């Protein structure tokens, strides 16, 4: 059977070079980087090389600004809770958007519920853009942090982070961006974006799961969220995930080299897919913008009158892996908060399909999908009480 993987925003396969780079640190140089003997020092050196590579990928001035974490979620938690706790005497207001990943939204709700913070959740327009003006308007005396994602995981909207950064910079406020979906797909430069904190995750760009990083601009204060040893310059305790960190470093290096060619190739497939779906199936709505403000790897459609899980089950039977809403929410029943925020009605939001591309996808994959999808949608519509035929 065909195996076509179209869920790269959920996770990606580990690149062979990445796997090869990691292996010796599982079996040979397994020493704890905090120890002094040579197999440990070898591990410590590998960690510091990886730190340099990650710093290079996002344009950080100093590799000491990179703190390794267990992934994007922990990086978001550390950034938001860490900044909130460090600055709470100054103010307790945070600005975010309605379409953030749950790692950000639920962290904000946590601060609201348990630590008395006041959170502004900004609206987005019908393509998912946060307007920089709305950020400017929401800023108050007691605002301490603005956190807006760089690119949306469901609908691929690339937010105007640089413009927002220019506004936030004029105030004494920290600016965090969850760049988990952006890093490795589009150019990311922390100085150009004027962010103080930036989260990234290895497994979104062919690195291993269980490792990510938080960029913390020099001079930015955060309270550590995991207490213990002095690792990561006392910002994140716990023995380093050496093989994972090495894998992240290697993935960052490759991503940097391939950034342009990958974006070009993947966005060509993306546009072919978008065009094909719009030509072959009626009553579909593209979610998110078109062109350069959309992540090169993201396609997201609502198919009216049908429900998302039914589409996924049918695709899976043909060997195609895709997602509806986002993988993280498939345990819950509410339609995607992102699709509701861009104004899709409840039933339409229920019928979304997200296809996210990667380097392993080919022209033939797209052709095959375009061949089978219209039939699946028609079959489900014929079964739907909402469809008049």
């Amino acid at each position, binding site marked *: 059977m065909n195996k076509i993987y179209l869920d790269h925003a959920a996770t990606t396969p580990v690149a062979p070079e990445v796997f090869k780079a990691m292996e010796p640190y599982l079996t040979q140089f397994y020493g704890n980087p905090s120890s002094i003997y040579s197999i440990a020092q070898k591990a410590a050196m590998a960690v510091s090389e990886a730190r340099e590579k990650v710093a290079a990928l996002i344009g950080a001035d100093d590799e000491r600004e990179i703190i390794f974490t267990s992934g994007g979620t922990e990086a978001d938690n550390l950034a938001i809770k860490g900044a909130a706790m460090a600055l709470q005497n100054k103010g307790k207001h945070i600005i975010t958007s309605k379409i953030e990943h749950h790692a950000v939204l639920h962290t904000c709700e946590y601060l609201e519920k348990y630590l008395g913070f006041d959170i502004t959740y900004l609206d987005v327009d019908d393509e998912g853009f946060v307007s920089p003006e709305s950020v400017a308007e929401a800023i108050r005396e007691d605002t301490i942090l603005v956190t807006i994602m760089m690119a949306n995981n469901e609908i691929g909207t690339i937010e105007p982070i640089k413009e927002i950064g220019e506004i936030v910079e004029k105030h004494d406020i920290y600016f965090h961006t969850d760049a988990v979906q952006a890093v490795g797909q589009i150019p990311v430069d922390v100085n150009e974006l004027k962010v103080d904190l930036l989260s990234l995750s290895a497994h979104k760009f062919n690195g291993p799961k269980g490792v990510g990083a938080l960029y913390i601009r020099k001079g930015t204060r955060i309270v550590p969220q995991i207490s213990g040893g002095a690792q990561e310059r006392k910002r994140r305790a716990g023995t380093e995930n050496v093989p994972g960190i090495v894998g992240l470093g290697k993935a960052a290096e490759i991503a940097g080299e391939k950034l342009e060619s990958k974006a070009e190739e993947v966005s060509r497939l993306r546009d072919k897919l978008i065009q094909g779906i719009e030509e072959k199936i009626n009553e579909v709505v593209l979610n998110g913008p078109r062109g350069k403000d959309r992540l090169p790897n993201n396609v997201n459609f609502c198919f009216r009158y049908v*429900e998302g899980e*039914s589409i996924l089950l049918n695709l899976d*039977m043909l060997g195609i892996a895709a997602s509806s809403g986002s993988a993280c929410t498939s345990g819950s*029943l509410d339609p995607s908060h992102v699709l509701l925020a861009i104004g899709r009605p*409840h*039933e339409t939001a229920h019928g979304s399909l997200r296809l996210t591309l990667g380097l392993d996808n080919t022209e033939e994959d797209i052709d095959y999908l375009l061949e089978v999808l219209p039939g699946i949608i028609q079959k489900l519509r*014929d*079964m739907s*009480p*909402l469809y008049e035929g």
Partner: protein
Amino acid sequence: MYSEKVMDHFNNPRNVGEIKDADAIGKVGNPVCGDIIKLYLKIKNGRIEDAKFKTFGCGAAVATSSMVTELIKGKTIEEAMKISKDTVAEALDGLPPVKMHCSNLAADALHNAINSYLGKSSEEEPQAETEESKGYLDSVSNDQ
């Protein structure tokens, strides 16, 4: 995550469609997730002669709809009234916990159709499953 039976009924749903001159129609929306089923019955001498459905919903919604039509064909309306969501879920070899509410949909549509046939206004509100608390922030017990 679904049983083989569920997947079988999802892939080859029995009795999809409409009955033009149906004697009873039950239409319900699932209050938990917003999915919708429309169930058509042909009833003669107190017996369900034919049943068809249309469903907008998840895999479990489609499978339970299909299963309900199979279970009720040939049954008297009294017998059909006794079919509950648990009957349907059991007939499908169970549903994943997060999908238990889906079996409400088909059972509610069935009861709704029969009640309307019997001339009872069936405004017994379909009940949402509330076994799971919605707020993720409510303290979580350890035994999951």
